[in-house]
Structures are given as C-alpha cells and as structure tokens.
C-alpha cells in the first residue's frame, strides 16, 4: 500500500513529496554517479552561489545597504537608476537598492522560520504517527486532515485576519500550511522503515521506542525530507509575495520583496525599477533554492 497522497495545497512541494512516496523505485541511478553528476553540474554551483549571496545580503544588510531602508529623500522621488541610487528610488525617495538588500532579510526570515517550524512540528508528528501507528496515527491524521482540507491561501487569509496582517502572520500561515505536508512526507517512509526486520531486532536488544525512532529510523528517512525542505523554502518566498499581494503579509513600509513588488506594481509604467529589482531578487532566490533542491535530490534521494 502506498502512502496516502497529500492533497495539493498552494505548495508545489506537495506534489514532489507525494510523488517521491508514490513512485515505483525503478530508477537505477547509483550514489556515485549521482554525486559526480551533482558536482559536475554547474547549475547546482550557481544555485549555491546565489543562495550564499542572498544569505550574505541578509546577514550584512546594515553594512551593505547604502541607506536605511526607510530613509526618505524628497529631492529624489521616483528617480530612475543613477549613480546616486543604483536601483533608483521609490515614491518616498527611498533607495530601492537598500530596500532590496534589507528585503533579503525579511524574505529569508519568513521562509526559514516558517519552513523550519513546519519541518520540526510536521516531522515530529509524522514520525510519531508513522512509528506508533494505531489510534495515535489516526488521531494525528484526522487533525492534520482538517488543516489539509482548506486551501492554503484561504487559511492564510483567516490567520492574517485573526492576528492582523504582518510578517509573523505570514510565517504562521505558511507554517500551518506546510506542517501537514511535512508530516506526510515523513510518515510514509517511516511506515515502510518500521516494517523492516532490523527495527524488530534493535527493539529486542532493549532499545527504547524513542531511541529506535530517533537513532535508527530517522536517519534512514531524513533525505527526502530535507530535499522537500529546500524546495519548500523557495515556495515560501513565493507564497509570501502572494500574501503581500492580497495584503496579508508584511505591511508597508516594511521592505519585504513581496511588499515592494506589490507597491511597485502600480508604478510599472512610470517607474518600473521600483518593482523590477525586487522581482528579480525573488526570481533569482527562488531559482537558487530550486537548483540546490535539484542537486540535493540527486545526491540524497537516490529513489528519484
């Protein structure tokens, strides 16, 4: 029996996860070949480079940005890219470059905290459900089903309304959307792993359930889980942008990329640089994470 399919949410990661669990293991790729292919693959290298760049921007935003992100300059309103402002300025005369740099912070913050939280909670739930099985499995699944059965964006709308829109509402929304996904990505392989003989053997030797789960089962199922995480990171950045568009995430004047993109959308004709640069930042970051995800998949998840 195959693991139940994760119903799709707004996350494309769900698709890959379900696929990973469902696909017949017909692939004949071997570790060594995959490793060579991955290192050979300049695309993965580029992805790593891009991700490092973004992380660097986020870490050293204060040092790198020529201006404070909310510093207004009324002598330089909506001015096109020039020596004074390399990416131009927006309607408040704020430096777009500085805002893009600081935006890396917010976008990464949203992506990393939300995905880390959902991986931790979802992973733990999935491991528990899969390993213990029975009533507990059932109970966990029913609760997760409830969150699973509402389209993710609608859930996000509700959360933003509940808490008031803002960066942390977006984090919470994305985390809640991804938690059941990660729980399922974890549960399926755990079920398969638990059925193996060695688990029985280790238990017979007197290992506690917790020890078996953490020391023996987890290491064997973690790879596809991590690959999922990388891809989910890239999705989280896009979701944050969509939430910004619907007015549910970071609020002006917070310089999140999604927010800048949305604010600048109305200036596309007269001052395209306001939104083009944050748009590029989103694209490149998402691309970088996707490339890394592809590379990791080759290395870590030999089944696909």
């Amino acid at each position, binding site marked *: 029996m195959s693991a139940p399919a994760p119903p799709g949410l707004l996350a494309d990661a769900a698709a890959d996860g379900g696929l990973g669990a*469902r696909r017949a293991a017909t692939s004949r790729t071997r570790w060594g070949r995959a490793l060579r292919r991955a290192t050979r693959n300049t695309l993965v290298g580029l992805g790593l480079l891009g991700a490092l760049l973004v992380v660097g921007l986020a870490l050293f935003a204060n040092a790198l940005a020529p201006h404070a992100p909310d510093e207004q300059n009324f002598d330089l309103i909506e001015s096109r890219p020039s020596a004074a402002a390399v990416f131009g300025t927006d309607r408040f005369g704020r430096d777009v470059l500085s805002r893009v740099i600081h935006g890396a912070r917010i976008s990464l913050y949203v992506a990393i905290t939300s995905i880390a939280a959902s991986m931790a909670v979802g992973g733990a739930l999935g491991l528990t459900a899969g390993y213990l099985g029975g009533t507990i499995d059932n109970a966990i699944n029913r609760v997760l089903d409830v969150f699973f059965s509402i389209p993710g964006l609608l859930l996000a709308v509700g959360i933003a309304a509940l808490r008031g829109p803002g960066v942390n509402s977006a984090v919470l929304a994305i985390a809640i959307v991804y938690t059941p996904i990660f729980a399922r990505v974890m549960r399926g392989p755990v079920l398969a792993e638990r059925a193996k003989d060695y688990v029985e053997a280790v238990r017979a030797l007197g290992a506690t359930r917790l020890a078996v789960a953490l020391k023996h089962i987890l290491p064997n199922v973690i790879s596809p889980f991590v690959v999922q995480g990388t891809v989910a990171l890239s999705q989280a950045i896009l979701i944050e942008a969509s939430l910004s568009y619907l007015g549910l995430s970071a609020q002006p004047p917070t310089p999140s990329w*999604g927010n800048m993109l949305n604010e600048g959308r109305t200036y596309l004709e007269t001052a395209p640089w306001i939104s083009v640069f944050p748009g590029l930042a989103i694209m490149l970051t998402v691309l970088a994470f996707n490339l890394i995800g592809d590379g990791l998949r080759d290395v870590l998840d030999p089944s696909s």
Partner: protein
Amino acid sequence: MGRYLLVRLYSMAVTLLGLTVLTFLMLRLIPGTVVEQMIGADAIVSEAMVAQLKAFFGLDQPWYVQYGRWMGSLLQGDLGTSWRTGKPVVQLIAERLPVTLELTAFAVAVAIMLGVVAGVVSSVRRDRAVDNITRVGALLGLSVPVFWQGTMLILFLSIYLRWMPPVVWVDFFADPLRNLTIMLLPALCLGTASAANIARTTRACMLDVLGSEYIRTAAAKGLRPRLVVLKHALRNAMIPIVTVVGLQIGILLGGTVVVEEVFTLPGVGRLVLWSIYQRDYPLTQSTILFVAVMFMTVNLAVDLLYAYLDPRIRY
C-alpha cells in the same frame, strides 16, 4: 476497494466536523464584527444601537448556541443566508463555482499540454539546447509570482496591443468565445507553475523509461523513434505523470484566489476573501466548508484514479 472507500468517507466526515468547529471559532476570534461596520465611522454610537444589531444577527447568543444553529441548518441542507448581500449562500456559491472550476480546468489543460510536451521533447533531446532551454524555462516558470505575471501581461497587452481580456464577465454557455477570451490569460498564468512541475516530472520519468531494456530493444528492432517515444515510453511513464497532474489539480484549485483577484474573475476565492473582510459569518463559514468538501473529493478521486492506473497499488 469498497472498504477503502468507506474508510475514506468516514474519515472525511470526521474531518469535516472538525473543520466546522475550527472555522466557526476562528471567525469568532477575528476581531471586529459586522455590527461595527454597519454602524460605520460617522455615527454617534449608542449601547441600544449596538444591542439591537447584535440581536438582529444573533451575535448576542453564546457561541455554542450560534454554532448549534449553524449546524442545525447545515443538517437540513441549508447553508444559510449571507448577512451582507441578503442572498442565500448556496445561490452565491452556485453563481461563482463554475468560474473557479472552469479556471481550474483550463489551467490544468494548459499545464498538461505545456508540461507533457515540454517534458517529452526535453527527455528525447536530452542535454541538447532544447532540453536545457526547457529545463531553465521550467525553473523560471516556478520562480515568478503569479500576480506579477498577470499584472505584466495585462499592462503590456493593454499598452502595446490595446487589448485586454473583457472585463465584464460572460458565462461559457451565454457566449463561449467571449468566455474563452476572458479565461485565456488567467489560465495561462495559473497553469505556468504547474506546467513547469509537470514538465520536470515528465522529463525525469521519460528518462527512466527511455533508459530501460525494453525500450532499447524496441528501438533495436527498428521501430520508428517517434512511435517508440509516444507509444511505448510515454505510456509507461504515464503513471507518475498522472499522479503529479492529479496533485496539481488540488494546488490549482487552491491557488485560484490570487488569479481571480488579479483578473477580476467572479470566482469562489474572491467571494470568501470578501466575506471575511465583511465579517459575513454565514457566507464565510459555509463557503469554506463547501470548498473543503470539494477539495477533499478531488483528492479522493485522484487517489482512486491512481489505484486504477497502477495495478500494483491495492487499497
């Protein structure tokens, strides 16, 4: 199979019950009610006025009474009446559901056509220029926010071609051609990311299959390459592709809100959004419930289809 279906239906019912509680409580926890909005910013507020309005909407009752009333009417098949528009919720859903379904269907069509073709071509021309372009294109397709894509499309078309999709909505049955012109861009935008996903899966599966013994044998026997690819390889790569397509349907259904908003389509997603802002409880809670049922049904159907396609799977 029958037993499996029963179990699934049972757990669906449990989930739905949980969902009603969740939705109901969440809505009540959201600050602000319809009452303050009815009174507005310009009125001199009096206790009596607030009490009168609260009583009118039944908001003066404890939450379990309100919940009980809602459940009671649900059990009688009544989704309730929208507070703001005064129309039955079921009528509002009926007006808008076809739009969302049509949008999803077209997006799925776009995704399948683009995705499968690109994936097959890419796998057959592995590591050639076409393959690389397709792969990078697929990655880019995954990297652009949908609303951004939509805005750009509308802007460029309206400025350079003096054209945009008609803004006044027309039902498919009233005027199919006009309806299709309205749907074209939204479906394209919505379908892009899914197309990219499908293309990637198709490529990977095709590569697997093309590398297998029997395909090489078929080729060695001198069958025409096109026939080999289409008849033998694609058919065998179909199962995972269908799976991913099925999953995309769910994703697309959930992702319509943004596209509906960008292109001003009168779909269910925007209805829910609006109702939440208006604190129109009956409309929000019953619509979300409805969407959830739809969502779960799609997922169930995908699972059943999967079992049907892959005889190795038995539930």
